[in-house]
């Protein structure tokens, strides 16, 4: 029997049992679609996080006081174990390094904000004018901290705070009180929402020296450094480390985190996550494979008569085996193709429903699910096909 005829004949068989074939194809399609959609979700989440993290700045290096042993640890994890302060003087020296385009020292704390008869505990950020370009922040109104304004009593409000305290919208130039100090509102941040666990809509930004006085500290929370080029990152990291060792009496007591390292960590975590959900979805492919095996076994006993007849008119066992294998292949292949389309439609729907989430199924996942579907289908067909090929034609024809 020629291969082409084998494929045609088994295709005809598949279409001769429409309900049965439809159900198996559906099971296989759902398995493949599950893999495609879930990997699309996982990969979409990865891209979403990476994008969000990239959006807080480019070519960033963060310098934290204290020494963390694990590279790429989450910023802030090393807070509270500070052997030696990281000072504004350190930051100023750092700014002189040739690789550094700009830097922004940062202090974080809480204080009570009072204005227009309202009072509320809020997070304050102390920094300089450079924070705006480094963090890629946008202003909705007014202006940011002025350059060289470390001592001027300026304040920039988060979008939500501005609305809460000044519902009439007349904000710029108004006076507010932070603890017992008076500040004049110079600008409002545009709405950004949550970024890496940090809601910039509910913070205020004041000049660094005011912040240090207010929080009664001389130690910085961290220094954010933007280097000139991406290729400068390793050398800048090295230069910063050497400078800090030199300034801190030969002791390496700062942690330097590059944005790239953090990004790479997130990337790894989310890839592992995507693989994990793909693996779980792949179980449904195995289940579909078992279904195919079951249905093919039933088919062998239902078609005993036909198998006996084919043998009587001269089909060798190998032809019978190939017929059943190609039938299983048709079922799983059709299921895989429908599942592929279904998965892509599902991903499209997710992207339409959540435009922020770039839920594109990765090519490797689509390809792998089709290959796995096809191979499980064929493997599932092996046992029934072998059983059919071994049937004794005399018994098969006598209906026993």
């Amino acid at each position: 029997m020629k291969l082409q005829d084998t494929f045609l004949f088994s295709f005809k068989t598949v279409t001769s049992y429409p309900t049965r074939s439809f159900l198996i194809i559906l099971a296989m399609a759902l398995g493949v679609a599950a893999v495609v959609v879930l990997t699309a979700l996982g990969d979409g989440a990865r891209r979403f996080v990476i994008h969000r993290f990239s959006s807080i700045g480019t070519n960033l290096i963060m310098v934290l006081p204290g020494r963390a042993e694990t590279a790429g640890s989450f910023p802030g994890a090393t807070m509270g174990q500070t052997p030696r302060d990281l000072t504004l003087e350190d930051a100023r020296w750092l700014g002189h390094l040739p690789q550094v385009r700009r830097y922004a020292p940062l202090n974080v704390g809480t204080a009570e904000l009072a204005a227009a008869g309202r009072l509320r505990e809020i997070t304050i950020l102390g920094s300089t004018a450079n924070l705006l370009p480094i963090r890629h922040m946008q202003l909705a109104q007014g202006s940011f901290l002025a350059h060289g304004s470390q001592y001027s009593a300026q304040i920039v409000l988060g979008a939500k705070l501005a609305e809460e305290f000044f519902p009439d919208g007349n904000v710029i130039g108004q006076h507010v009180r932070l603890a017992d100090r008076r500040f004049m509102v110079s600008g409002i941040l545009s709405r950004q929402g949550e970024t890496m666990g940090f809601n910039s809509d509910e913070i205020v930004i004041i000049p660094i020296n005011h912040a240090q006085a207010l929080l009664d500290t001389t130690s910085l929370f961290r220094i954010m450094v933007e280097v000139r080029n991406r290729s400068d990152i390793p050398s800048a990291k090295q230069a910063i480390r050497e400078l800090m060792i030199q300034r801190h009496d030969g002791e390496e007591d700062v942690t330097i985190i590059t944005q790239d390292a953090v990004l790479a960590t997130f990337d790894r975590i989310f890839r592992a996550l995507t693989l994990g959900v793909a693996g779980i979805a792949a179980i449904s492919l195995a289940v579909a494979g078992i279904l195919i095996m079951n249905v093919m076994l039933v088919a062998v006993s239902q078609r005993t008569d036909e198998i006996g007849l084919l043998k009587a008119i001269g089909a060798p066992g190998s032809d019978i085996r190939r017929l059943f294998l190609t039938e299983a292949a048709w079922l799983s292949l059709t299921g895989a193709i429908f599942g592929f389309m279904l998965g892509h439609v599902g991903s499209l729907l997710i992207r339409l429903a959540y435009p922020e989430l770039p839920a594109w199924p990765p090519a490797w996942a689509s390809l792998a699910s089709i290959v796995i579907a096809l191979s499980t289908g064929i493997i599932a067909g092996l046992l029934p096909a072998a059983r059919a090929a071994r049937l004794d034609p005399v018994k098969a024809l006598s209906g026993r």
Partner: protein
Amino acid sequence: MIQLTAITRIFHMGEQEIRALDHIDLIIASGEYVSIMGPSGSGKSTLLNVIGLLDKPDSGRYQLDDRDVTDLTETEQARVRREKIGFVFQAFHLVPRLTAAENIELPLILAGIPPAERKIRVEETLHAFDLSKRAQHRPAELSGGQRQRVAIARATILRPTALLADEPTGNLDHRTGSEVVALLENLHHAGTTLIVVTHDRELGLRAHRRIGMRDGFIVADEQ
């Protein structure tokens, strides 16, 4: 020519040993018309299955057209079956999901004949068996006589040297049965060896050579 020498076929039913064929010696020349008769369990169907290479004897030799086919592999036996032997069954054994034309086409597909040639040969055969109008009908839509005509057409489309019929009229009424017998006898007149296994004395007596069987032995062989 079919030549069986000391063919023995033993079935086991639990502890019991049943000799369905017990040292059968038989020569059937090309173009003969033979009937094999005997009570149930006499071994007549087993004899037909051995001749048709569907069943393997436990001992003895089988020569078909001067070739020893006893020890051929399964694939080689399938080839011999395809080329030299046509089977006609009591229960027709048509593939229910295929049309009459597709059922007749099956042996051609198995033989690897290209589609264009298949089409021509199927049409010729449909015409010869007066089935042209029924070509696109499935077995369920055909009468018993038509089904057996389709089965005979399928058995003979590759022009086998021997046609083996196991109770070919068993599922048919008398009139349709006679038509089918006439068809088989026409094929015999055209030169095919015809071997018919039957209970039906009337049908058995039509054959030129009548073999009687009982308990695995040939008890009668009359010309």
